[in-house]
């Protein structure tokens, strides 16, 4: 499978079913990568979102036919088991965008969120899903981030560096069965992620 962002796909190589792709980021940076991947994917796609984000995504062209599993409307945060239960009933070979780890980390201790993601990762393997998720690394400590990274097949690391009044954004492949990379420039224009040249 490809994410639909040529430069990133080249860096990642072919993504096999059962993979968990973790985008370790700052804020919402990187969500455009997930959205682009979902839009480009012609097969089944499911998005795990908060109800607020669901409203936004439903207006995005290309995501109208996605299936949404919504946290906070259909499921309370205490009912994460219903998400895993529904996931197991989905047809195999879906692309799953998990976009609610951030609010989960606010509502729940990191170990709870880790156990939840671990369960999702197991379901991905048994159902040939590809999971793409983003996590704001400011919400967790290094140890917890290491746990999430260990769980993932791929880790895409996004950083933001302030140089005077200039913001420089970088992206790298931190973990992959294929190869890891150094940082490349990252720009987000009109909701699309654009990966440029290697950063010195």
């Amino acid at each position, binding site marked *: 499978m490809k994410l639909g962002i040529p430069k990133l796909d080249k860096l990642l190589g072919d993504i096999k079913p059962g993979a968990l792709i973790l985008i370790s980021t700052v804020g919402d940076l990187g969500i455009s990568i997930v959205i682009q991947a979902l839009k480009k994917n012609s097969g089944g796609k499911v998005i795990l979102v908060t109800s607020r984000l669901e409203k936004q995504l439903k207006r995005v062209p290309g995501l109208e036919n996605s299936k949404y599993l919504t946290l906070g409307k259909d499921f*309370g*945060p*205490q*009912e*994460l*088991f*219903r998400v*895993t*239960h529904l996931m*197991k009933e989905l047809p195999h070979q879906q692309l799953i965008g998990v976009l609610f780890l951030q609010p989960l980390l606010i*509502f*729940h*201790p*990191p*170990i*709870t969120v880790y*156990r*939840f993601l671990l*369960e999702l990762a197991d379901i991905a393997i048994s159902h040939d899903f590809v999971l793409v998720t983003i996590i704001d690394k400011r919400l967790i400590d290094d140890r917890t981030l290491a746990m999430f990274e260990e769980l993932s097949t791929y880790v895409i690391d996004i950083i933001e560096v302030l140089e005077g009044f200039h913001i420089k954004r970088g992206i790298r492949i931190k973990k992959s069965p294929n190869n890891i990379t150094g940082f490349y420039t990252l720009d987000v224009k009109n909701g699309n992620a654009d990966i440029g040249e290697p950063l010195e």
Partner: protein
Amino acid sequence: MGRISIGVPGLDKMLHGGLIPGRIYLVKGGPGMGKTTLSMHFLMEGVRKGEGALYITMEEPAAHIKTDMGKFGFNVEHPNLKIIDATPTGTKTNILGDIRYMEFGISFDKLIAGIKDILKEERYTRIVIDPITMVRVILNNEAAYRKTFLLFVNTLISNDATIILTMESDEVGVEEYLANGVIELFKFVERGKVLRGIGISKFRGSSFDEEIRPYRITNRGVEVYHNESLFMGEEY
């Protein structure tokens, strides 16, 4: 060893195939946790298979039980289901033949004798007493209660029926030691929301799922998610 369904598919999975028939089981849980509903699933599963099922309510009036359980879709008027009201409500005094409610307060033997008579008249393969706690309250004497409870257990066992007794979760009594299996209903509250968990703490003669699994009470009754986990942090 043969198994019988408890009437809740997810719980049957947790029991690794269902209950072992002819034994006594305890369902423990706080108020509103679904003890009665779970018990009714067990009885109606028997009714569905053409068995006779006996429900003895010691706390909630039978009329309320019928109304409440009917809302879950249980056919509480089915001729194979007998509901006995053993509660001290209204003007009713006779609860089992000529046995009066107040006599329970004097002797638990009366209840046993009454049930014996019922079992002589008709064959019931599934029996629920809900809650057994009430009997303890009535007897108000631990030694007497233990003695009569043992007698009670032996009486029921000798009739080859499978029995479910319900009791409140904060109690640990002789019932727990004598029962062949204990199913517990747990409630966790976080940020004003309730998460329900079901666990098996004892099941003689069988392996079982040792993890507490989530369950919900829906308009179809109790649903157990035997493949799912309760996602809770280490502080629990």
